[in-house]
């Protein structure tokens, strides 16, 4: 593997199940799966609804808003692509629609992150993929 490739951050690529999510991301839309039978909204692109096990599903656009459920600050370099980033935050955001997503918070210093902080999605664009990041909505810092 070329050295430059080893040093870049891992960029995900869609598989068949997650393609609507990543296609939506490129268009600036945060997409979730909603069960046609019971209305439960889920994020991981699973064929079955975890509540009623139905496979009838529609992808829907989420509001993009949520709140910080919990967060951590990474100090170790487990992947060379993050060597220049440490210490960086990792957050679990609970979306307004219910599902939780793992991401990073932007526009806030690690010391100012609080649980429950309202956040909104913004997109970090790369060549062929866009990644959801979250920015605090209010500036109570």
């Amino acid at each position, binding site marked *: 593997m070329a050295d430059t490739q080893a040093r870049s951050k891992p960029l995900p690529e869609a598989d068949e199940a997650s393609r609507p999510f990543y296609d939506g991301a490129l268009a600036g839309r945060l997409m979730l799966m909603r069960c046609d039978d019971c209305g439960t909204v889920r994020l991981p692109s699973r064929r079955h609804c975890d509540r009623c096990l139905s496979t009838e599903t529609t992808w829907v656009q989420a509001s993009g808003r949520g709140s910080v459920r919990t967060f951590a600050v990474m100090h*170790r370099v487990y992947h060379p692509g993050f060597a220049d980033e440490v210490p960086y935050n990792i957050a679990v955001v609970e979306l307004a629609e219910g599902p939780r997503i793992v991401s990073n918070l932007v526009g806030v210093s690690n010391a100012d992150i609080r649980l429950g902080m309202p956040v909104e999605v913004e997109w970090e664009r790369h060549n062929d993929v866009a990644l959801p990041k979250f920015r605090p909505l209010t500036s109570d810092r």
Partner: protein
Amino acid sequence: MPHPMRGATAITGLGMTPMGRVFGKSATELAADAVRLAIADSGLRKEEIDGLLTNAGVTGTAGHGIGLPLQNYLGLANLRLLNHMNAAGSTAAQMVQYAALAIAAGMANNVVCVFADTPLQEGTSSGAAYGGAARNPGRPRGMAGLYAAAGFFGANTSYALATRRHMALYGTTHDQLGTIAVGQRQWATMNPSAQMREPITLEDYHASRWIVEPLHLLDCCLVSNGAVAVIVSGAERAESLRQPPAFVLGMGQGHPGDVQRAGVEAETETGAKLAAETAYRMAGVGPDDVDICQLYDCYTYTVLVTLEDYGFCKKGEGGPFVEDGRLAPGGALPTNTGGGELSGYYMWGMTPLSEAVIQARGQGAERQVAKHDVVLCTGNGGVLSYHGCLILSPHRS
């Protein structure tokens, strides 16, 4: 009426290889060493072993762990019970449970449960062994790719997120978490099998480097090569064997599930609660009756949250509960008396189980707790996802 499983079986043999940076033997060879030691310890003849349960550790994920072929490596013929089990860190307790149920049902007589793992390679760090997806070449695919893209690697991150939530919700402090680490190190200084035997202070804890904040290095367990085996036998047979039996008074499991959606409190409320209900009822005891705890301690926080879910204190009060040194030598609730996974050795669920057997037998030498009638032993796997427990005692009834 006592529960029919209460005291029906006992752990009759214990075998432990050297553990830690132990090189030059495969997982299979280490497992065979542990089984040989356990059989010798019990006084059973090898021909009396009619059950084998295996658990491979992280080596299993990598594809070269122990499994069903171990039967033939050990030359065990005509087994009545055989399985390869995996519920991560809760497997050790679950192997003993399966063995106990099978023995009580008349399906087998003496069942070996063995764990072996070789995550460490010469010249590599402990972190490398459990770094997870960070090692994978190429682009991560699908939704799971969001984790790698966010720089989320391995269990350290997951437990940091859980620990943070408990700290934020309940005011749990680093002093309180550090007290757990310091106390367990005190125990480890008295355990010849422990990897880390130099005493540490709370200052050392605070000064240890961040791994994933809020986890310091000294919040995190060790990584070890090695193997541990136990033998489960019927109570009658146990009483005629070489060692003081560690009777199984109670056992339980709890797996809360996490669909990663609003309404689930997976970070701070664990399967230990369900497991405790079942095990306490079976054993006819409650938290006030427990003399010694051996709690799965992949992180300091795991100890704290497990204490809450077993009812030793209320939810959220784990911090104040531990901060007076209650878990350390001389404390009111001796816990992880061999140093645990933080300071002793990391053999998944076999770490708490091996020390539980040692203490129940009264063979802890310098670190033996005087009152050892009821020993609680827990196993935790995944990210507080899977939980199994045993309540052991030197007394059958």
